[in-house]
């Protein structure tokens, strides 16, 4: 067993070539699924593995697949490669370095839910990756791994890339589907969820790139093997995107259960200039700000373990903040981002982010008057629980946690 399951190109640089990927067992899982397993059996293995969505929500992947409405056809699979959360750059490395493992995951997911057509929705900035994947898809077609009557069965599958054009909101699955349908990327009211009403109103599974890249290994090696890694709450491995005030920012593929201390100090080389660590945002700009005390630094990380700290692991986009940074500046940055990215569909988010922006700018320019800080906190709290999608909620996380937990920076 090699060190990497997902970032295998770090050990096998040529794995982005089809023959090399196949020499290392590539597409055996897809063949095994299509020729030797029923779609339900594939879904069952993924369910049993405990694989959870790596885009941030952590929803059980096999369970999502099992929700597909079987009375309504055709079915679609859409890979979410929109990766736009500030602090996230992991899907990009998978697609650049180990593209076939991701594409094989898309293929297996498609077989499991009976889809004959799959789309890969990439953020617009990833044009070079879309072109790269187009080449890989063409190679798969030429090798008989995509197309009609695959492996001599009557299963057929086509795959297509689709480029977004610069909109964070399109990472939200229903906004992504709207965008793929050729509209402005504004979220739909849920329910219904995509497995009953998705692309073109048809049952659709939307999975993150990293999630899908796990699937071939699970099908090949079994659920038990996968569960032997990570924690009971979150089996398997996770790519942590480490950024901010660390010496060695980058992607680190590690089993769930690793601690922030290991991630930041062992793998990330510690804090720039060896300064004291102050705060951690574990889920990119959408995070609550967590005070980086010993208890937090030594907590084994999975989806459940950060809840007692008032945080979420999300997509594990760990932004590290040291003692040179003031939290009022941090939330000015996150608010600016969410105000820019708010799609404008629902009032609490559109107006709320607008007013938060004005208030934080005023506080940062005119001095930290208690009344203004309280007003900012009130606006953020007013938004919570009232927005159509998660973006509005996300925009308040750093604001509320920052003012509550780092009050000294707002006085």
């Amino acid at each position: 067993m090699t060190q990497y399951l997902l970032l295998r190109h770090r050990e096998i640089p040529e794995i982005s070539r089809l023959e090399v990927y196949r020499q290392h067992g590539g597409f055996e899982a897809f063949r095994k699924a299509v020729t030797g397993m029923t779609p339900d059996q594939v879904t069952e293995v993924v369910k049993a593995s405990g694989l959870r969505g790596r885009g941030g929500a952590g929803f059980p992947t096999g369970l999502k697949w099992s929700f597909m409405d079987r009375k309504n056809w055709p079915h679609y699979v859409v890979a979410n490669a929109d990766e736009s959360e500030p602090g996230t750059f992991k899907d990009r490395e998978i697609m650049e370095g180990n593209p076939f493992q991701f594409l094989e995951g898309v293929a297996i997911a498609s077989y499991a839910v009976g889809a004959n057509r799959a789309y890969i929705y990439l953020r617009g900035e990833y044009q070079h990756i879309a072109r790269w994947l187009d080449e890989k898809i063409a190679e798969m077609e030429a090798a008989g791994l995509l197309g009609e009557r695959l492996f001599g069965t009557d299963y057929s599958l086509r795959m297509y890339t689709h480029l977004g054009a610069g909109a964070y909101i399109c990472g939200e699955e229903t906004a992504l589907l709207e965008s793929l349908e050729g509209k402005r990327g504004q979220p739909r009211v849920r329910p219904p969820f995509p497995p009953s009403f998705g692309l073109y109103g048809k049952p659709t599974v939307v999975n993150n790139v990293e999630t899908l890249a796990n699937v071939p290994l699970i099908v090949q090696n079994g659920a038990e093997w996968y569960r032997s890694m990570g924690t009971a709450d979150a089996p398997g491995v996770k790519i942590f995107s480490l950024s901010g005030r660390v010496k060695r920012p980058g992607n680190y593929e590690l089993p769930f259960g690793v601690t922030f201390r290991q991630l930041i100090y062992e793998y990330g080389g510690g804090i720039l200039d060896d300064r004291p660590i102050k705060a951690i945002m574990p889920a990119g700009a959408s995070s609550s700000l967590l005070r980086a005390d010993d208890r937090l630094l030594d907590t084994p990380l999975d989806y459940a373990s950060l809840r007692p700290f008032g945080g979420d692991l999300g997509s594990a986009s760990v932004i590290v903040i040291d003692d040179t940074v003031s939290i009022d500046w941090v939330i000015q940055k996150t608010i600016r981002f969410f105000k820019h990215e708010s799609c404008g569909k629902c009032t609490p988010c559109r107006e709320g982010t607008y007013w938060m922006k004005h208030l934080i700018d005023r506080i940062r320019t005119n001095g930290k008057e208690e009344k203004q800080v309280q007003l900012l906190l009130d606006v953020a709290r007013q938004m919570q629980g009232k927005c159509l999608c998660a973006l509005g909620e996300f925009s308040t996380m750093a604001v509320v946690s920052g003012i509550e937990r780092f009050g000294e920076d707002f006085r």
Partner: protein
Amino acid sequence: MTLAEKYSQEIQAIFAKYPPEHKRSAIMPLLYLAQREEGYISRQAMEEIAELLEISVTEVAGVVGFYTLYHDRKEGKYRVQVCTDLPCALRGADEFLKELSQALGIQPGETDAEGRFTLEEVMCIGACHRAPVFQVQSAEGVTYYENMTVEGALEALKKLE
């Protein structure tokens, strides 16, 4: 010349990606195609795309306006888009933008007198571990420039001229 005349093969390939009854899905790739002409999408191109997709020009313009990588106005030939979001800013992106702005002699949002460069401040582009970073958007598409210094950036931009 219309887009359909100039890019008939590309347009066919784009439509082939989507179910024929859902050809509206082709709007985003068609807009990129239109933008290849002059780095922005003209009113005429929007009208043509609306006709191809059998939707209104307003709907096309709504999509153009929604996404930040589509432009409806002519700016510099190269849009220099510097990320100053939180992870990049923690690694000096604000200072980088300021210095680059001084070196180019234009403020963010401005275009130089020759119409070569437009400087823009943009949201996260997914390269937080390689800050400071910027991307250059032109009629040809988007190119990343990572782990940048101001000198390195100026050198790279010079090669574009």
